[in-house]
């Protein structure tokens, strides 16, 4: 089954993903990614399992080396490294665009990533997975 913004329970997050989807429909790719970024940053605050998963991913030596070498674009919980990058250096995580234009296919990937992440977080899937792994 394909996921949709309506599958999100939290009204604020659902509204952001609905706006992202509408932007995608209209070819406003960058706006779609901006709304997804807003939702992702909010999800980091709202779901401890997402933040925990992200920290775990970023602490992994392979991922660190891959990011350093610029060959890693996707990792679990990590905002994909296409047109916009996650910056964890400041007091709060933020997302920085490093180019003006965003391709449609990139916008789709950000949208799918954010939608899946939030729906799974709301279903508590990550906590269950961590528990199963004894992590």
């Amino acid at each position, binding site marked *: *089954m*394909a996921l949709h913004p309506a599958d999100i329970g939290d009204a604020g997050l659902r509204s952001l993903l609905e706006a992202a989807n509408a932007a*995608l*429909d209209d070819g406003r790719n960058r706006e779609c990614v901006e709304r997804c970024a807003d939702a992702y940053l909010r999800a980091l605050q709202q779901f401890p399992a997402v933040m925990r998963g992200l920290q775990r991913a970023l602490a*992994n030596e*392979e*991922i660190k*080396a*891959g990011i350093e*070498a*610029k*060959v*890693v*674009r*996707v*990792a*679990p919980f990590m905002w994909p*490294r*296409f*047109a916009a*990058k996650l910056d964890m250096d400041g007091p709060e995580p933020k997302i920085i665009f490093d*180019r003006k*234009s*965003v*391709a*449609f*296919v*990139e916008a*789709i*990937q950000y949208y*799918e*990533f954010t939608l899946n992440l939030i729906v799974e977080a709301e279903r508590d899937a990550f906590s269950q997975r961590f528990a199963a*792994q004894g*992590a």
Partner: protein
Amino acid sequence: MKFGLFFELQLPRPYDSDTWGPEDEHRIYKETLEQIELADRLGYDYVFEVEHHHLEEYAHSSAPEIVLAAASQRTKSIRLGHGIVLTPPPYNPPGRIAERISALDLVSDGRVEFGSGESSTELELGAYGVPWDEKKAMWEEGLRVALRMMTEEPFGGYEGDHVSFPERNVVPKPLQKPHPPLWVAGGRRETVLTAARLGMGSLGFSFETPEEAEERVSTYWELMRGECRPIGKAVNPALCILSQFACAETDEEAVRRAGDGGAFFGFSAGHYYNTTGGRDHRPGRTHLYREFRDTPEEERLLMFQRRMARRAAIHGGQQDQLEQLAGAGVATAAPEPENETARGLWRAANTRSAIGTPDQLRDYLAKYEQAHQDVMLFVAQSGTRRHEDIMASIELFGRTVLPEFKERHETQHRPWRRRKLEGFRHPVVSSI
């Protein structure tokens, strides 16, 4: 379900020599053409050939348009698939892509399948100056411009991030209108869903199970019907997957014919598609096949587990569990990696898939047919499999199993697709 052959043009170095013999590349190209000819005579529907660069031993197919053009003159019906053309402009400028696809479509009487992709190894991306974080955008821009060039008369010009091209009439135009069926390559579920959203066929390289195929078919069609924003002027609703392949009258003979093909396929893919993007490869020096053969099978499995564990760590998976297994020297019953890309490589190396007798293959493939999969591509040429054995497998399957699947494709699958396409709001160009 339809069937085809998938070619990487694998060419392992001879074990006892540091490099290939003077005739080896010539031989593999000629054998490939003979295999395509035979498949065409027997009624296989597709041949797809990759575009890779510098991936020694794993893929010597860097100019698929040449092989497909040659095949077009030796065959009558088989569809000629680019699996894929690299459309980031540094690899192939969109003007040249449009011209080549159109010319191939003309000389083949309209038999081209236009698959596209972006590549995923540092050996390729680094050589052509394609940044990892821009390759997806480059793929899309190159493809969009090439499609406009095939369909606009004249092409109105374009100024973008990666392509700048003036107004010109790009000729020739393809025979299939508005353009040949479109496909996009990918190994992850996400890419399959992206294909649906863009109105493209999915060339899935994940060696998925029938259960996974069923879920993907369902979700793909849901997105295709409800959320498709076509990248071209016509959509190609189609799902295609890969399987290792060898067929013989007895199970033992099928396994013998398959030889080390699947294991080498997975081993060599793991060498290039790892977290360093293949940066540890020494061009012209690394002897992959010797490394493969000199690694005892159980150690090979451990090596594979470590590589996949690293990959899983990056893409999501059971890193800790796999590392523990590797460290403890446990060499059996490796769990399938959670991550899809890693799992695809694991399956390519470690599962039987379509290797067996006609009856075994009939049963195995019927599950994908029931999942409404459109196309199954066989990786017949792989590792050190012998040409004679590949030909015998293609022939036996083609004579004993293929006809009944072709019949059911017409009588059952096509009506199912027609129902799926009822009320569909986009033009369709598809060979399914």
